[in-house]
């Protein structure tokens, strides 16, 4: 949450105001990752707060502790998914999806009176897994440095007279100011060139 929401900081009256929004720097994969991160927050809280209800719905009685642990895992993966390191969070989510599917597989038998609920949950998790994989691939592709695409800037010295001829050039007419030299004296007031204009 921005500090500005708490402190009540507001934009100054005369500052330019947005009249029409344009295209964003966020890619579709970034936005999908963000949605999945918030989904993780919601699911994680539900698993932490109501593990018994989820267990009963899915026929996983006795697994309340495991569901609660999965809730903590969801929240832990939500943090990087909502950060700029989205690929780390999405990878964690994909690993978590595999655990969820394995756990649900244990409920997919006819002896479980809630097996239909478990089947629906399995289908949902499978769908979410596909979204996670798509977001992971998309984020990786959108923000990757292409392998082997390193440029060579060895012709960009920025020193028109050459590096060797430039060494110490400024010492001819520049002394380190007193406040920055080893004696550490207080600055002399230096009128800035701009101020003399």
């Amino acid at each position, binding site marked *: 949450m921005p500090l500005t929401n708490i402190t009540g900081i507001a934009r100054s009256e005369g500052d330019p105001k947005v009249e029409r929004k344009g295209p964003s720097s966020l890619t579709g994969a970034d936005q999908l990752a963000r949605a999945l991160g918030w989904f993780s927050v919601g699911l994680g809280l539900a698993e932490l707060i109501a593990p018994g209800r989820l267990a009963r719905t899915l026929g996983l009685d006795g697994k309340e502790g495991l569901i609660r642990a999965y809730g903590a895992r969801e929240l832990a993966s939500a943090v990087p998914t909502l950060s700029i390191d989205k690929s780390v969070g999405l990878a964690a989510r994909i690993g978590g999806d595999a655990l969820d599917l394995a756990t649900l597989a244990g409920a997919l038998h006819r002896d479980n009176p809630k097996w239909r609920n478990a089947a629906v949950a399995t289908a949902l998790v499978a769908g979410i897994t596909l979204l996670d994989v798509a977001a992971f691939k998309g984020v990786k592709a959108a923000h990757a440095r292409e392998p082997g695409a390193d440029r060579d*800037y060895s012709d960009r010295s920025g020193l028109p007279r050459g590096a060797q001829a430039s060494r110490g*050039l400024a010492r001819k007419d520049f002394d380190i100011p007193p406040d920055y030299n080893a004696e550490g004296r207080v600055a002399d007031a230096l009128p800035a060139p701009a*101020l003399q204009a």
Partner: protein
Amino acid sequence: MKALVWHGKEDIRYDTVSDPAIEHPRDAIIKVTSCAICGSDLHLFHNLVPAMLPGDIMGHETMGEVVDVGSAAKGSLKKGDRVVIPFTIQCGECDQCRRGNFSVCERSNRKKEVGDKAFGHATAGLFGYTHLTGGYPGGQAEYLRVPFADTTHIKVPHGIDDEKLLFLSDILPTGWQAAVQADIQPGDTVAVWGCGPVGQMAIRSAILLGAEQVVAIDHLPERLSMAAAAGAITIDFEQESVVERLNALTKGRGPDKCIDAVGTEAHVNLGQPDTVLDRAKQMLMAENDRPHVLREMIYVCRPGGVISIVGVYLGLSDKVPMGQAMNKGLTFRMAQTHVPRWTGDLLRRIEDGQIDPSFVITHKVDLSKGPEMYATFRDKADGCVKVMLQP
């Protein structure tokens, strides 16, 4: 007008916004001819400074032409003047400005009460850099209102390309101040962490100030090649130990002067496990900065040496080894750049052909491409080192 506008984490948009107008007699309006994305803009892009409002205009590296001048600024500016705008806003009259400490001007932060709470005492107003420093609209736009314009400008001559002059706004004086406040003496070995745009300027400044050895530390081949082009010895920290190599280059003494041109967002990798822990804590809002470079500099610096910090730090940094720093008698100098203190001299050096800052530009695009260029610059994709934008 069109502008690059912050809407949230990683969400910069090319929006249509209302035009700025003169609000105070000391204001001026400039028509922006060129602007750039700074590495410190990425901290805002990543929402690491939680004091932005959706709708804030980005940008603090700007130049252009004066198109309107307030009555109190007419003595020093007129329509048609070509100016570079320092990223720091300075009144030119307060005690700090008179000392040359322009980045801590006592009057230009119009949200002083917020700055006082955040920093103990407010610092100068900055363009496009959160409401802690005034919440001023930035210059990645077609027009910019410049407060205190009679003192917040660098007049530049016609006939020199924008590419050579634009970086007087920030990265050139920042790199220069990094070298100057390191108190570089002939014979010194100067180590520069980070070969982004500021690190590149610091390397060239250290050369101009006569450092015997300049050692550049990064992990991106293209940036290291750019550092080597200016005569720096390079260390790829993913390939070799920074501490061992620096000690080998200095007969075991350590570099005399260490410059931090990285700041809060040190590269995270398993080879530097402290960065992984810092990143995790940053995600949980348990720490603001990733001060890996600071830790390494303090460890490797020669006793009695100088640590010069121009990479931006944001707040709380954990596990900074102050015991090592104290016992080794290190001197720390750091600041946001006092831009106008150096720019007259640096402009002369550009005109004299001692330095040509345009070498750092790798991408020059229309302002409308700004949103995607933020991502390109952040991802260091396509060999990107510096993005110049033109409305």
